[in-house]
């Protein structure tokens, strides 16, 4: 579960207000700006998981913003917002790397569904990365464990064979044998 950082760019103040109100309902960290140029300033400052942009804006339009975002950080997902008349441009945006498009007027349930999908996708990618890295550490830890156990096994076998040969040594008295065997057993460092 990840809270997304979301940047919204729209030149219509009424629509910005609606975004502000509806996106407050979510757990996402939301920044709203007036146009493409301001959006570019924001993405220069920090990373966003998702950018929602109107296609038609004065100055830098949605396609121009998409280009800047993908140049800077391809992992930022872009959803373009389009009127009925500019579906062709929306398709062009998808070809250039936008993840999806939504038609005006925005159906917020649909938007939340898209954001949930992105959140789930990011979470799966993160899980896969963690799984791969954890596997690598677990494997090297297991190898070390086996190596350590092998070493202590060898030491134990060496002790056992020294004790066996001492026990069979007829030149020693029983009490001498016991003293030497105790020495071998208590010598844990070797």
């Amino acid at each position: 579960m990840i809270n997304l950082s979301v940047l919204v760019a729209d030149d219509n103040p009424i629509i910005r207000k609606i975004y502000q109100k509806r996106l407050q309902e979510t757990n996402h960290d939301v920044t709203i700006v007036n146009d493409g140029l301001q959006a570019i300033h924001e993405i220069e400052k920090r990373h966003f998981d998702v950018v929602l942009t109107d296609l038609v804006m004065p100055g830098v339009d949605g396609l121009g913003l998409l280009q800047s975002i993908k140049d800077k950080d391809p992992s930022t997902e872009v959803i373009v917002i389009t009127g009925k008349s500019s579906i062709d441009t929306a398709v062009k945006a998808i070809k250039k790397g936008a993840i999806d498009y939504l038609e005006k007027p925005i159906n917020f349930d649909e938007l939340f569904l898209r954001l949930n999908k992105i959140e789930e996708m990011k979470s799966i990618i993160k899980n896969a990365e963690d799984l791969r890295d954890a596997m690598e550490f677990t494997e090297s830890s297991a190898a070390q464990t086996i190596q350590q156990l092998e070493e202590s096994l060898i030491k134990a076998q060496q002790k056992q064979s020294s004790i066996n040969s001492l026990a069979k040594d007829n030149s020693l008295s029983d009490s001498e044998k016991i003293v030497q065997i105790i020495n071998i057993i208590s010598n844990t460092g070797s």
Partner: protein
Amino acid sequence: MIKIKDHELKKFIAYIHDVSGISFDSSKKYLIEMRLNKVLEEFSYKSYEELYHNVVNDRSKNIEKSIINAITINETLFFRDTSPFRLLEEKILPEIAKERSSNTLLNTNRAQKPLRIWSTACSTGQEVYSIAITLKKAHQAARNFSVKLIGTDISDSALCQAKSGKYNNFEIERGLDHTTLSKYFTASGGQWQVNPELRAMAEFKKCNIMKSFVYFGKFDIIFCRNVAIYFTPEDRKKLFNRLADSLSENGYLIIGSTESLTGISDRFIPKRHNNLIYYQHNKQKKTSV
């Protein structure tokens, strides 16, 4: 992705060890690079040098938090490797119940003490909630214990999710069967949340286990699975000796199935249940290193 230079890598390996205890060697360059690159993006730094300079001078510790969140490997799942939970249910809880009932007969107040369980690196909380579910499913005597279940982790973002008890479908599907899911979780807005009853059993706190943790007191059971694998052998020795200090008399320690305390610490007695090795506090060895 911005490439990390060798001298920058060296600085970050030392820095990461210092703040988290995690030991990377230079063979993990790709991993450090990939994970730190996210922090570069987050703060729009142009180089690892710049990131390093800023993090060591950042009094707010916000950059440090981001680095820890990025670098820690939060690989966990519900009932990850089922054997420790079976050990808990089949062996440890009945043993403790038996010991406590005999203590009650002797009229000591030990029986009233809460059962204290610690998950040392709980990540996003799955191990803690798996323990809580096991306790709920356990036999009558164990169900009557009052329980204090503590999960600690070094990553703020992992702890935040652990506290919320919210998981997405992918996280839920790994390790939970339908009966357990419907009994202990509630679906809300495309996610699942652990029921309040289980959440109330658990407490989550931030802790770097390479630093002091004596203030948490003594525990009856400590889970320290797949944590020490990220540490150097020297740090592992220190960690397990300090864990021995935090374990109550006859307390239990459960480590990962690929780990062993042979050559690491002699303050535990290895025991076996089915195919799992677990450890009990060795009262004879008192000295901490």
